[in-house]
């Protein structure tokens, strides 16, 4: 599929492929028609995390060749982070072709601008993934991040992306390390029209992490555990939509992950609060909360495609994607959208504990010992 190589000016004109997960039938349309696909009592749940400029230049004591550090997830406090290191080069070079970073070990120091960071550990998943503690206060660190940082860039995009290119129209706290891109085309005009249909809109905040690291072993382990916050209001909105037989529609895979992860950690019920989600969704995963998904165009083999297979079998999805490919749909962060939405609510409302919790514990999770697990 062709790449959308820059943000487009009128997102309502972008395309929307509607897929019925039960039958695999699909319909071609414009994003402006999203409200027509929804009905009274449906609920859209968005990720309201704004995007941090997570790509930072760094150097070692004896090496200052344009190295790059990407923040990958916050650790146990505001100055402790998981980060992925990249060798010299910039966004013109696809991530997988970037030279490896210099070898580092626990106890080494790296510098981001004037701030030093102590390497606490190197992950067993990849020598590029390190846990670091910045030797500065949070205020000073964010000052440096906003001064030196850029949004994570993509080699298929034709120009450098500015911070405003990677924000949604409703982003608040800058927890996301790459843009929660499914929500990118949702303008307030569109959201207001959705509301006029009697559809509710609620938010959670999910610290969406990196989409690529340049190391196949690490890429295979994505997404890494991510923190999220699920407000009481949103739990109530989901319960109310359920009661009225409305469908719960996640805007973006990060929302599916937060909601299903929260339910899985709480015996099938949602509990407001914050936590870390390590659930990785895939084919055959029984959804407890979410009925539908608004997302980008994702090709087989990606973790996003695997997540879509929790909604619709790959075999039913492929003809739709093939249609999109041959009819000019664009993919990636600034690409077109797909709506996987069944006629009726399908997610289970599990009352009893799950018999076989469909959880995948990444090795990284064990190392997040200091991070509180999803709060009950």
């Amino acid at each position, binding site marked *: 599929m062709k790449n959308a190589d820059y943000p487009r000016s009128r997102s309502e004109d972008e395309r929307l492929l509607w897929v019925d997960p039960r039958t695999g039938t699909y319909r071609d349309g414009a994003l402006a028609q999203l409200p027509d696909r929804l009905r009274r009592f449906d609920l859209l749940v*968005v990720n*309201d995390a*704004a995007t*941090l400029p997570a790509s930072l230049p760094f150097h070692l004591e004896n090496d200052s060749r344009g190295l790059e550090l990407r923040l990958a997830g916050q650790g146990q406090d*505001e100055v402790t982070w998981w980060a992925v290191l990249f060798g010299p080069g910039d966004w013109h070079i696809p991530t997988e072709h970037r030279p490896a970073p210099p070898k580092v070990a626990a106890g080494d120091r790296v510098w981001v601008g004037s701030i030093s960071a102590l390497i606490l550990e190197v992950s067993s998943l990849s020598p590029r993934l390190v846990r670091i503690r910045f030797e500065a206060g*949070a*205020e000073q660190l*964010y*000052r440096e991040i*906003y*001064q030196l940082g850029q949004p994570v860039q993509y080699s298929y995009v034709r120009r450098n992306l500015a*911070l*405003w290119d990677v*924000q*949604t*129209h*409703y*982003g*608040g*706290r*800058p927890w996301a390390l790459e843009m929660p891109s499914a929500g990118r085309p949702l303008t*307030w005009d569109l959201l207001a029209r959705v509301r006029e249909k009697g559809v509710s*809109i609620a*938010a959670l905040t999910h610290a969406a992490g990196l989409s690529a690291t340049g190391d196949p072993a690490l890429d295979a382990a994505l997404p890494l555990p991510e923190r999220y916050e699920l407000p009481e*209001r949103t739990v109530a909105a989901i319960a109310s939509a359920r009661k009225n037989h409305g469908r719960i529609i996640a805007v973006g895979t990060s929302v599916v992950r937060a909601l299903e992860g929260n339910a899985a950690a709480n015996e099938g019920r949602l509990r407001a609060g914050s936590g870390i989600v390590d659930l990785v969704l895939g084919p055959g995963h029984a959804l407890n909360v979410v009925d539908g998904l608004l997302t980008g165009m994702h090709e087989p083999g990606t973790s996003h495609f695997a997540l879509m297979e929790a909604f619709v079998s790959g075999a039913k999805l492929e003809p739709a994607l093939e249609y999109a490919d041959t009819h000019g749909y664009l993919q990636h962060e600034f690409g077109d959208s797909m709506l996987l939405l069944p006629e009726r609510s399908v997610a289970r409302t599990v009352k009893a504990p799950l018999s076989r919790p469909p959880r995948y514990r990444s090795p990284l999770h064990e190392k997040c010992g200091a991070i509180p697990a999803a709060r009950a």
Partner: protein
Amino acid sequence: MKLNGQGIVITGASKGLGKALAFELGRRGARLFLVARNEEVLDRVVRSLREDGIEAHGWAADVADKDAVYPLAGAAQTALGHVDVVIHNASALGPSPLRPLLDTDCEDLERALAVNLIGPFRLSKVFAGSMAMRQHGWIVHVTSDASVSAYPTWGAYSVSKAGFDHLARVWAAELDGFGVRMLSVDPGDMNTDLHREAAPADDPTTLLDPEEVAERLVDFLETAEAVPNGARVSLSEWRAPRWKSGDALATSIGGTRS
């Protein structure tokens, strides 16, 4: 509006009314993120607030600088979490000393518009989306009587403030259903740097003290739930008991009530 525990962003907070508002809001339990151009002066204000036990964070930025907007908003929301209130208090006079429009450089008008109108628009745009999603938020425009009266030589400042007032009204008309409230407040003529710059000959003893104005303005904000969304309020005409009666205000201050 309850102030205790609220996350509040104030621009132009290193001196004058902005600084006085910071102390007054802080005393009433608000958590503050303060913006001003002069980092050194701002740091002193932040330190002194903290000495009083007030949670305060400082961020040096020019509100007219397009590139400063997302960093400012991001830093504010890492420091405070959700932002509940934004007070657009930073202001630029335009040409200094003041002069008739025929003698006003276009660049002076542009600067006044950048600081007094476009900067606040950009900043509101980044905060109001998240407020609308949470169905909660206040945005306060600090305005001036020059926005309604045509005083000779005040042209650049006047038109920027007139646009600023109307910006609040249009925001309110669009966002009223989303729980976001906009107000314009005219604090009156105060003994501040901006007034000295505009009218150096004025006797400072005839001018309002910014600290007293801040106290009144904060009193007003505490009861502002009753004020229609988008209203423009002249602080000198505001009387607390009367104003609590809600709807009677709508006609007198010309806001939109939806």
